């Protein structure tokens, strides 16, 4: 347990330091995009947060599936911690996206595929927590939540294809393309720095949440034994 806590502190501090550096890079170092101007700089927060949110549903679904198989409480805790991180980072995407959209598109909200997909992902995470908290038997809540995470993750590719069916306003991918990234070097470097930072920060918070959940279980066990 102390190892996990130490890891959580180290990763979170590293992530926070990275966040400061990322803000410095994206405000002062990276060159301004020609057509969009200054507003494009939100991209270095928006895209890493989106990447982390989708990483989180993947981890949560994977841990949930193995939990249903092995019934190890630690896996359920990991799935919970990942889902909570995912909810936070999806909220960041849903805040930064419309802020950028208001200036770049002239509207806070459009039915743009990736924005819609993130909104639905947010609701899948929200459903995960509602199911968990709406059962009297905690084990039942864990199983129900695991099923929600797994079905949600399996449905994401379908949702992605279906929302793409509608014509897209979103900027087309500039990094993950067959012919290689078209982003200028300094922008690409800042973006990758952001991806690394957000991933570190996510795992730091993930470990913290995981440790807290472990302590909570232990405390509950203690009160139950002392009551008996």
């Amino acid at each position, binding site marked *: 347990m102390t190892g996990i806590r130490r890891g959580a502190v180290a990763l979170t501090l590293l992530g926070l330091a990275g966040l400061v550096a990322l803000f410095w890079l994206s405000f002062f170092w990276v060159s301004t995009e020609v057509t969009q101007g200054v507003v494009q700089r939100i991209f270095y927060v928006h895209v890493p947060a989106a990447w982390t949110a989708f990483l989180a549903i993947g981890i949560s679904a994977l841990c949930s599936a193995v939990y249903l198989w092995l019934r190890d409480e630690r896996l359920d805790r990991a799935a919970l911690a990942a889902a909570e991180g995912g909810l936070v980072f999806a909220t960041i995407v849903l805040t930064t996206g419309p802020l950028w959209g208001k200036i770049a598109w002239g509207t806070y909200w459009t039915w743009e595929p990736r924005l*819609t997909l993130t909104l639905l992902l947010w609701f899948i995470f929200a459903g995960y927590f*509602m199911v968990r908290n*709406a059962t009297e038997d905690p084990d039942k809540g864990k199983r129900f939540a695991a099923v929600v995470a797994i*079905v949600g993750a399996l*449905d994401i590719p379908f949702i992605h294809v279906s929302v793409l*069916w509608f014509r897209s306003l979103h900027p087309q991918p500039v990094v993950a393309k067959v012919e290689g990234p078209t982003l200028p070097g300094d922008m690409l470097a800042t973006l990758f720095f952001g991806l690394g930072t957000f991933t570190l920060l996510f795992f730091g918070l993930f470990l913290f949440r995981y440790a807290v959940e472990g302590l909570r279980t232990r405390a509950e066990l203690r009160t139950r034994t002392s009551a008996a």
Partner: protein
Amino acid sequence: MSAYVGRLSAIVRKDLVLELRSRERVASMAAFAVLAGVLFNYSIDTTRVRPQDVAAGLVWMTLVFDGLLGVGRTFHIEAQDGAMQGILTSPTPKDAVYLAKVIANFVLLYSVALLVLGVFALFFALDVSTNLGWVLLVLALGSLGFVALATLFAAISTGTSMAETLLPILVFPLLVPMVVFGVGSTGRLIAGRPFSEVEGNVRMLGAFAVGAVAAGAVLFRYVVEE
């Protein structure tokens, strides 16, 4: 294998016989469909929008809401008098219980889907005759996908303190592909476009239905275990 089919069909028969005798769900779903059509009529400014242009969307939205109404009560009867324990302690495999519930719900929802199509064709002067076969296929695939997801999540929501109120929150985000592909193909088929134009939509709808049934059959046992 034949024992599996026998047990599965016993549950299907039980559910359908119960429904035929009580007509509890089918009557309320049918009334809901017709009344939704009436309300939709007054929700559209027909001097600006041709009802035919939005009819496909109305058909699917009615199916989704109506489906929740009916499928949400799938395990209602089992929740009483410990009947669920009876089914689960019987030698029927859990996935057979799930598939039986899906089949019974599908029969129910598809009958309502046919009614919705007929009533809306009458109300909004739709010409469904050109592509009737394809429209029926699209409605069948959509109903199957819907029922597969909703049955699994109905089992979950029945087990929570929030009961039916939780079901839409869990199911709506997951149903987006079904609505996109379903409305996309139904709209164009009703407008008389050739099937080749919507083939991609229909294939995706089919893949969605098959995936939903498979996922439900695998995961249902974890929902109902004691």
